[in-house]
């Protein structure tokens, strides 16, 4: 596999993810987790949630924590790829 095929695959992945935004500009793009919770509430209105999260972050804090999670992961992956790359050059 070459750098070009890698770029092609990544480009295709970006296209797949970006396409819905262009194809369905009016869609709400809410989360499926919430959609499923709503479906449960709609079909089983008698079901009572018996626990609740003991802490729910605000939208802003939530995005920070998700960003931290991704950044931590990217750090790990980038470190390993970088080390490999460095060894190959020697």
């Amino acid at each position, binding site marked *: *596999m070459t750098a070009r095929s*890698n770029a092609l*695959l*990544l480009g*295709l*992945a970006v296209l*797949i*993810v*970006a*396409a*819905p*935004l262009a*194809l*369905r500009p009016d*869609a*709400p*793009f*809410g*989360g*499926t*987790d*919430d*959609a*499923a*919770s709503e*479906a*449960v509430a709609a*079909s*089983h209105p008698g*079901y009572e*949630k*018996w*626990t*609740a*999260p003991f*802490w*729910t*972050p605000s939208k802003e804090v*939530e995005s920070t*924590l*998700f*960003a931290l*999670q*991704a950044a*931590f*992961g*990217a*750090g*790990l*992956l*980038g*470190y*390993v*790829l970088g*080390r*490999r790359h460095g060894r190959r050059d020697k």
Partner: protein
Amino acid sequence: MHIMEGFLPAGHALAWTAISTPFVVAGVRRLKRILADNPQARLPLAAAAGFTFILSALKLPSVTGSCSHPTGTGLGAMMFGPSVMAVLGAVVLLFQGLLLAHGGVTTLGANIFSMAIAGPWVAYGVWKLSDRLGLPAAIGVFLSAFLGDLATYVVTSTQLALAFPDAETGFAGALAKFASIFAVTQAPLAVAEGLVTVVVINALTARGQMHGLGEKA
């Protein structure tokens, strides 16, 4: 694929926790053995953990007009076998359940089963099968990551359908309903995960070594 806190009846929550626990325990033991036998595995393990941390944090738009996130568990399942991913996936889900109110504590067992057990095992099985069929490694990696990702969402749909069967159409009707929310949204995202996984495995392994991955379960 997160079942939200409180959205599984107590019996179901307990059952999924009981089913998932031995997988996580076995995964911890396997992880310890891998690190003891081969300390150099630390780096690729960190890469596999990093990959699932990144991907499961990204909520991506899909053609259904909803957002969902990939799982990133296929990569590690191919490299180290599926049991290791039970541990790495559980770490992600615990973080999200405790700090992000995504998923939860009572639903942790069910969420671990879908994302950290079922997905990786399907990915691993597909990877081994494609190897046996003699498919090109890149195709095998793609199919493995794609189907592993999708399997997670099919399992989540099944878990919800078992807990909340439809009043008229029963389990099958509920499964179709939840699958239309989760699995259909996930399909294009799973394709994207498959493509990215091919690139990352390609970058992580020396040329021609893809076939040697994941010898032991």
